[in-house]
C-alpha cells in the first residue's frame, strides 16, 4: 500500500511536470497567417499629346510648345488677326492626352481679354473652338471604350460657322463651337475608363486635338489674351 502511494505521488508529480511543459509549449503552433489589403482610388490625368500645330498665322508662333506626356503648358502667339492677315483662319491645334482608370469628364474654362473698348474688339465668341477626333490606341488602352464629344469638332468647318448676314461679322454658330460657351467650367468630352491595368510607365492613352480658330477681320485694334484651362475629373 505504501509502495502504491509512493508510485502514485511520483506519477502525479511527473504528470504535473508534463502539464507545465505542455503549457510552455502552448506558444508553439503549426500555422501562421498573413493578411493583406490594398486600395485603388480613381485616377485621372491630362498631359500634352505632342507639339502644337499653328497655321494661317501672320507673324506670331508657338512660344511654348507641347511635349508629349509632359504637363500641358502651352503658349501660342496667334500673330496678326486684322485684315492684313489674308488667310481665312488662324488655327492652333493643341494635342491633349488623357488617361484614367475610371470614367472621366474633360471640362474647359476660358477667358478672353482684349484691350479694345468697343464691341468690335475680339471677344470670346470670336474664338472658335472644338475637339477633333478622339483616338484610343496602343497597348494597355481600353480601345472598346466610347467617348462623347460635346463640341462640334473643328470650328473651321463650314457647318460650324458663317458670316452673319446682318452684322457681317463671322460667327462660330454650332453648339459649343466658340469660347463663349466655356466662360465657366463646361464639359467638352466624357467617356469610359481609358486605361486597362497597366503601369503608369506605359505612355499610351486617349489623344484628342483641341482646335482653336480665329477668322481675321476688322477687329478693333489692340491686343488680346486668351486663357484656357482644361480639367479632367472622375466623378
Amino acid at each position, binding site marked *: 500500500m505504501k509502495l502504491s502511494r509512493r508510485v502514485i505521488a511520483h506519477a502525479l508529480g511527473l*504528470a504535473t511536470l508534463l502539464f507545465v511543459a505542455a503549457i510552455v509549449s502552448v506558444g508553439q503552433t503549426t500555422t501562421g497567417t498573413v493578411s493583406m489589403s490594398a486600395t485603388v482610388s480613381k485616377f485621372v490625368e491630362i498631359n500634352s499629346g505632342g507639339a502644337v500645330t499653328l497655321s494661317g498665322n501672320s507673324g506670331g508662333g508657338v512660344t511654348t510648345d507641347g511635349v508629349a506626356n509632359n504637363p500641358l503648358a502651352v503658349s501660342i502667339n496667334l500673330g496678326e488677326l486684322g485684315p492684313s492677315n489674308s488667310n481665312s483662319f488662324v488655327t492652333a491645334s493643341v494635342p491633349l492626352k488623357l488617361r484614367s*482608370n475610371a470614367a472621366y469628364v474633360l471640362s474647359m474654362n476660358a477667358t478672353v481679354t482684349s484691350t479694345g473698348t468697343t464691341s468690335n474688339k475680339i471677344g470670346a465668341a470670336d474664338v472658335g473652338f472644338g475637339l477633333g477626333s478622339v483616338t484610343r490606341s496602343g497597348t494597355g488602352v481600353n480601345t472598346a471604350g466610347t467617348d462623347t464629344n460635346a463640341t462640334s469638332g473643328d470650328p473651321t468647318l463650314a457647318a460650324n460657322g458663317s458670316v452673319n448676314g446682318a452684322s457681317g461679322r463671322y460667327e462660330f454658330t454650332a453648339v459649343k463651337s466658340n469660347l463663349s460657351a466655356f466662360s465657366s467650367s463646361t464639359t467638352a468630352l466624357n467617356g469610359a475608363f481609358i486605361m486597362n491595368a497597366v503601369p503608369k510607365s506605359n505612355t499610351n492613352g486617349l489623344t484628342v486635338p483641341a482646335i482653336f480658330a480665329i477668322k481675321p477681320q476688322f477687329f478693333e485694334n489692340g491686343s488680346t489674351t486668351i486663357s484656357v484651362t482644361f480639367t479632367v475629373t472622375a466623378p
Partner: protein
Amino acid sequence: MARLSIISILSVVILCASATAEAQTLDISSGGQPTITGATGGSVTGSSSLLNDLTVTINFGEISPANTNSIVYVVVPIGIRSTQAYQVTVTVIGPSNANAQALQPADVGFGVNNMQAMGSKSNVCTNSSHIFYSPFNNDPSSSVTIGANGRATYPSSLSNISGSTVILSGPVLTKTGQASRRTDNGYVFNAMFAITPQFFAAGTSSATLTFTISAGPNVLC
C-alpha cells in the same frame, strides 16, 4: 486494486508525455520584423520577436498610378522549427474581383528565399538541403516584366497557389530534442510580396495567406 490504479495512472502519464512530445515536433512563428517599401499610405504590422506567432497584416496602401513608386514591396520573415523532416505549405483566399481590370491574384507577386539559421541550436544537415519550390524560389520585386497586354507580371504570384501548395521542405531544423520556441533553434526564411501600381479599376481588395508547417518528405540529415 492498487496495481490496477498504478497501471491506470502510468497510462495517463505516458499518454500525456506522448501528447506533449507530439506538440513540440513542429513550429512556425514570426521570423522578425516585416518591412514595407514603396507604399503610399500603406503599412505592415507584425511581431519582431521570434517567440511570437506569425500574424502579419499588410496594407499595400494606394496602388493606382497615384502611387508613383515603381513597386510596393513587403518582406515577411518566417521562423520555422522541427525535430523531423518538414514541409511548409501555403493556402490563399482572395483577392476576388469580377472586373478583370481590378486587382487579381496574378497581380500580387509572391516568392520565398533567404533560408538562414537562427543560432547555435539550429540543426545543420549535410546530406539534404532546404528546398524552395519552383516557381516560388524568387524575389518578385526584382523580376517584374510587362506582358503582351501591358500588365506587370511576376515569375510567381498568388495565382500560382492552388489549394495547399508546398513552397519549402527539408531535413530536421532543430538540434534540441524538442522544437520548443526559442530564438536560436530553427531557421528563418523570407516571404516576399510585390504589387506594381497600375491603372487598376478602382476599389479595395484583400487576401489572406495561411502558412503551415507539417511533416515533409523523409530526407536524411
